[in-house]
């Protein structure tokens, strides 16, 4: 249904046949929109039908403008709508890869595709091509990560993600990440509630409340301080050098988005993608499926600086408020301009409460932050922590609770 066939004539005349045709086509268009992450409900469909009936269908340009206002609900929708509309109704090619979904061909991004496979066939092996070539200390893959016995979970929690090769263990690791996100969330929220106590008298409300006592102030109303809940914004490096860690972190992010009331997630390699909506899908496999469709441009190097620049410019005002912790998960191997990275980190640090940089590489023996990228970024980072085991993620919780 997604590939645009010959568009039915939108000219009035032969009302019966045409309207049936148009109704079908409209339903298909709504499906296409939904597949492309538009929030379109029944009432929008009805309104659209009404628009078609009331003469908006006479000119494609007019219909497009009308539908655009009706169906788009955010800037991202607004920008891709014209392409989708033209592709569907006018049979033109979509210029960008704004991806008519359902087609798995859209997933030609190597790293994300791998991730998806990784999540889908839980019985499959972790493909060796996911190993970053060269910088991998030759390790015996048969012997590692297989911890049996009663204290299995604990052991797992301390295993470097790189060494978790067994699919069952990967699944277990994912579960821990989700559980961790949940516990982090509950503790943070409880703290939030406990602190809420009135500290100032609200005169106006006190009078209101006491009108029933003839104005004698018997019950006092206090003003409460409203606390903003902590917001967590995660920026995950999904470049080749991180590929071993991304799937676990994605699962972690998925858990966090699921559980936190206020969280946002972005993915970057050579460019930045906002993935919160896709990740909010309850089913992680479907979430990854949607993710791979959103991925644009082939993975390769990591342009952290440019990605941060995009973030600062287009997203920061919306997703960052005064109680926001930005969590960057990256190894800091910058293939772009390191100076730009430093500059953008400075800009980011002005905006948010804390920046935590999680680097899986810290867990490696003999690793020192010598790459130009990480060197430029470090002065602006409040917490620079390892993130190679689940335990290291768990260690973050007290830090986040203090914010």
């Amino acid at each position, binding site marked *: 249904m997604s590939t645009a066939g010959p568009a039915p004539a939108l000219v009035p005349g032969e009302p019966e046949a045409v309207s049936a045709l148009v109704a079908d086509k409209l339903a298909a268009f709504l499906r296409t929109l939904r597949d492309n992450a538009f*929030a*379109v*409900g029944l009432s*929008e469909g009805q*309104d659209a039908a*009404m*628009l078609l009936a*009331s003469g908006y269908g006479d000119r494609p340009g*007019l219909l497009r*403008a*009308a539908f*655009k*206002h*009706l169906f*788009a*609900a*955010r*800037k991202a*929708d*607004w*920008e891709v709508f014209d392409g989708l509309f033209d592709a569907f109704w006018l049979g033109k090619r979509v210029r960008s890869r704004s991806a008519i979904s359902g087609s798995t061909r859209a997933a030609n991004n190597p790293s994300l595709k791998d991730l998806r496979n990784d999540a889908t066939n839980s019985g499959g092996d972790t493909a060796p091509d996911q190993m970053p070539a060269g910088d991998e200390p030759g390790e015996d893959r048969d012997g590692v990560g297989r911890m049996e016995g009663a204290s299995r979970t604990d052991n797992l929690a301390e295993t470097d993600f790189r060494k978790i090769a067994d699919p069952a263990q990967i699944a277990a690791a994912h579960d821990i990440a989700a559980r961790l996100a949940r516990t982090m969330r509950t503790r943070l929220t409880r703290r939030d509630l406990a602190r809420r106590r009135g500290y100032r008298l609200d005169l*106006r409300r006190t*009078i*209101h409340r006491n*009108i029933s006592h*003839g*104005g004698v102030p018997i019950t006092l109303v206090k003003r409460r301080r*409203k606390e903003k809940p902590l917001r967590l914004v995660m920026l995950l490096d999904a470049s080749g050098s991180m590929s071993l860690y991304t799937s676990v972190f994605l699962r972690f992010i998925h858990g966090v988005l699921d559980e936190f009331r206020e969280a*946002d997630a972005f993915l970057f390699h050579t460019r930045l993608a906002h993935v919160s909506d896709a990740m909010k899908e309850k089913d992680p496999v479907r979430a990854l499926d949607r993710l791979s469709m959103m991925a644009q441009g082939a993975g390769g190097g990591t342009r952290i600086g440019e990605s941060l620049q995009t973030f600062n410019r287009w997203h920061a*005002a*919306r*997703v960052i*408020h005064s109680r926001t912790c930005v969590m960057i998960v990256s190894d800091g191997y910058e293939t772009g301009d390191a100076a730009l990275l430093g500059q953008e980190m400075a800009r980011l640090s002005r905006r948010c409460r804390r920046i935590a940089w999680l680097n899986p590489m810290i867990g490696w023996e003999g690793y020192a932050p010598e790459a130009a990228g990480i060197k430029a970024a470090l002065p602006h980072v409040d917490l620079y922590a390892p993130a190679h085991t689940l335990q290291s993620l768990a260690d973050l919780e007290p830090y986040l609770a203090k914010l």
Partner: protein
Amino acid sequence: MSLSRDQIAERLAGAGYIADGELAVAISLMDLLKRPLLLEGEAGVGKTEVAKALAAVHSAELIRLQCYEGLDQSAALYEWNYQRQLLAIQAHQVEAGGKAGAIEDQIFSEKYLLERPLLAAIRREKPPVLLIDEVDRADEEFEAFLLELLSDFQVSIPELGTITAVSIPHVVLTSNGTRELSDALRRRCLYHYVDYPDVDREARIIMARVEGAGASLSLQIARMVESIRKEDLRKVPGVAETLDWAGALVGLDVRDLADRPETVHETLMCLLKTHEDKARLSREVTERLLGKVA
């Protein structure tokens, strides 16, 4: 009363608002579908102006609700005039020796009700334009409440009963994107993204709004502002800033930007609002930009 798109475009122009083509469609859809219009865009692109222009189009009253964090029902919808109620109670006690029913009827009558913007908007005879400005600054709870109001257009006041809308207002919401709005609210609304105007439109805006700005100067100013927006700035100048700057240039009797590069550079303070931006647009940069546009 439903206006055609051409009529709307005409009246918008009459009101001094130079709209892009799609906005006229949005406004006619608002009438047709009875949906609110959600405007998003950078600060300073003229979102609030749209509501003002819309009020002019319908020659309706503009009722504005400015949202802020902590905005609640008593500031947005209605409130009882407590002080007056108290006075009334006490006066009544002295006079009548207190018949509770009578006092109650009296103090919970409309006379003691303070209308706030939302209530005012649904109680007008002629549908007004209700501008809910910067809705993203209000709390999520308020957003949910707003949603209810926007779908039913009725309000229940416990002491008075349900107040149904006398007329359905034209509702315009604006958002700066400081917080993600709920999907429910977005779905309820028509969406229009307001972008910075292109050179041609901005020049026309300058000509319409700034007295004494000629066609060639307006075009130069618009081009200059466009190239300044492309520079990497912390605060990108909006349309209001452009108008300020144009006003300053006209006031200083500049006819051609190329003739008076000094004045141009000195008046850039109308556009650039942070120290960093000021430093970034040094004299050399200004001259380079001027060379391109003038």
